[in-house]
């Protein structure tokens, strides 16, 4: 029990968030949306880590979360820079346009 809420609820919430993220990444073509969905997946994992960290009274889970946030921030910085370059070249951020690497 965590603040009166069973751990199962946390797991289900993060699973739902994660699946929304996965579906968003697969289904959407707008790169910004895909980015946001990736963040959603990361945060689903973060939520799970924090929940279990509190449950077990072990701070190392929270340390991981900080690392993930830091890495995600860096990733966004690089990713958005790439996206702005893509936009300059294609006047669009539709990822289906980026198919020149085939074969």
């Amino acid at each position: 029990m965590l603040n009166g809420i069973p751990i199962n609820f946390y797991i289900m919430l993060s699973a739902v968030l994660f699946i929304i993220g996965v579906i968003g990444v697969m289904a959407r073509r707008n790169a910004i949306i895909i980015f946001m969905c990736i963040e959603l997946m990361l945060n689903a994992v973060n939520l799970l880590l924090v929940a279990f960290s509190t449950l077990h009274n072990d701070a190392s889970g929270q340390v991981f979360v900080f690392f993930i946030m830091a890495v995600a921030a860096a990733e966004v910085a690089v990713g958005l820079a790439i996206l702005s370059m893509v936009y300059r070249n294609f006047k669009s951020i539709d990822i289906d346009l980026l198919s020149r690497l085939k074969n």
Partner: protein
Amino acid sequence: MIKLVALIPLFPLLGFIINGFFGKKISKNASGWIASFSVFASFVVSVLIFIELKGNHDMNSHIVPLFSWINSDTLKIPFEFLVDPLSSWFLLIITGIGFLIHIYSMGYMHDDEGFARFFTYLNLFVFFMLLLVLGNNYLIMFVGWEGVGLCSYLLIGFWFKNTAYNNAAKKAFIMNRVGDLGFLLGIILIFITFGSVSFNDVFAIASSGNNATVTAIALLLFIGAMGKSAQLPLYTWLPDAMAGPTPVSALIHAATMVTAGIYMIVRSNVFYSMSEEASQVVAIVGVATALFAATIGLFQNDIKKVLAYSTVSQLGLMFLGLGVGAYSSSVFHVTTHAFFKALLFLGAGSVIHAMGGEQDMRKMGGLWKHLPITGKVMAIGTLAISGFPLLSGFFSKDEILAHTYEHSQTLWFFGQIASILTAFYMFRLFFLTFFGKFRGTHEQEHHLHESPASMTIPLIVLAILSVFGGLLGLPEFWGTSNWFHHHLDPIIAHKNPIILSHTKEWTLMIIATLAALATIFFAYMVYIKNKVLPEANDAKLTGVKKLIYNKYYVDEIYDALIRKPLDVIAIAFYKFMDLQFVDGIVNGVGSAVNGVSSVVKKGQTGHIGFYIFGMVLGIIAILFFTFIK
């Protein structure tokens, strides 16, 4: 001085390096003198070491460690040199005769464009030969053994623009490989049996080996000797090796390298005196070779080929001596043979030089008045090899035959026949070359001249040695002390003095002498009185003559028995194994990859969404199989 023994091989090595790297930049004279001087320096050191060794009566075997060569778990092989009566004697022969032949070569090769290259190879040869006799273990000996084989190959094929010469070089090399394999297996067997390859270790515990093993070792080593010393059935390379320049024939294929097999067996005499069977094999192969090669020598027309078969025959005689346990007599014969055979080869070289490269005796004749010095020294060499009384060959050959008589009268009989044949074909060569009418062209007759001093002086020195070399080992039954036997005694494990009665020994000596004199007279009657000339047209020969002239067709037999089947097998393997099987696998792998990739590459659409979809499917599959199963 003995501590400085490493200098002996070092000088020729330096000569090799200088001539090898800078030979083209320095003058011909300089490169010839550098090569000759390096061998002379080795000779001086060898003499000093020999004198010191003889002066020191208590110690006659010195091991000079240089460095640790191979050092791994159980295999420890130090790089050591051994100075003892046997190796010090061979040092004198190699460096002494080597020096004379170097000097001679400066005259003989003077107009050759590969002058510096020739001396480079010659120095390298001397280096390896010295390594061979100096090494204190079988492995160093093997390195020298292979090295001299390499130099022999290089020098036989010295005039590499001639395909026949190149083939002769290859033949020599490949024939020697057969023997070398035997030698190598022998060394491995020695190591397995005794746990060491150093002479002093192995011989100290040799008696602990059982008879079958020792016999196997002795026979394997003998196979090595067969190859290097041109014994039946591996002798055919030596006559072909005459393709090389004549000084090479004298140095490598008469005086030194071909006696390496004898050196090796004398060095390993412990094994041979333990194994009666192996000794018997050595004696029989030796006498068979002596007789076989001597008969071929009777009908050869190429002056160098006659000498080559004579060398094979004489080597056979030495092996006969080894087989009957007369080790020091064999080394004695090696020594005298080195003198007179080097002399004969160099003399033949002088004749060829005068004839402008002609080697066919049918085109010579009457050279005595044109080549007075060469003629006289050739006469001495021919008399010495024929066993003319009091010349060097007389003593050494008699010693071997006396030992053989003691061992087996049948072997003695065949050995005696071989030596009679030797006297005949050598005088045939001598008479055909120097007497009668000149049979060459006018141009050649006009060109005839005595060789320069650089060639005649070595000839004269060798002639003196051929005359007096026998004094080193006067027979004991003359009441004199046999210096040579006393010299070699310390390294012979099982001493074997002649125990025949003096009357018997005198009888044998007189038989040998009379036989030699009668044969010389017979040759005189045939070739001088009756002026018989060899058939000018090879095709007209018939019967036995034809058989012998064609060397018993041994080359053709080997060709049919070994080369042709190998060719057939090789072609079969090429067609089926190589073209079908190996190529099939290689090409199959290639086309399989091609086919699979042409299908798989369709999945590479370039659409990121598709890739992510694939990735998600993959992750789900992994999770599914990991957790649910």
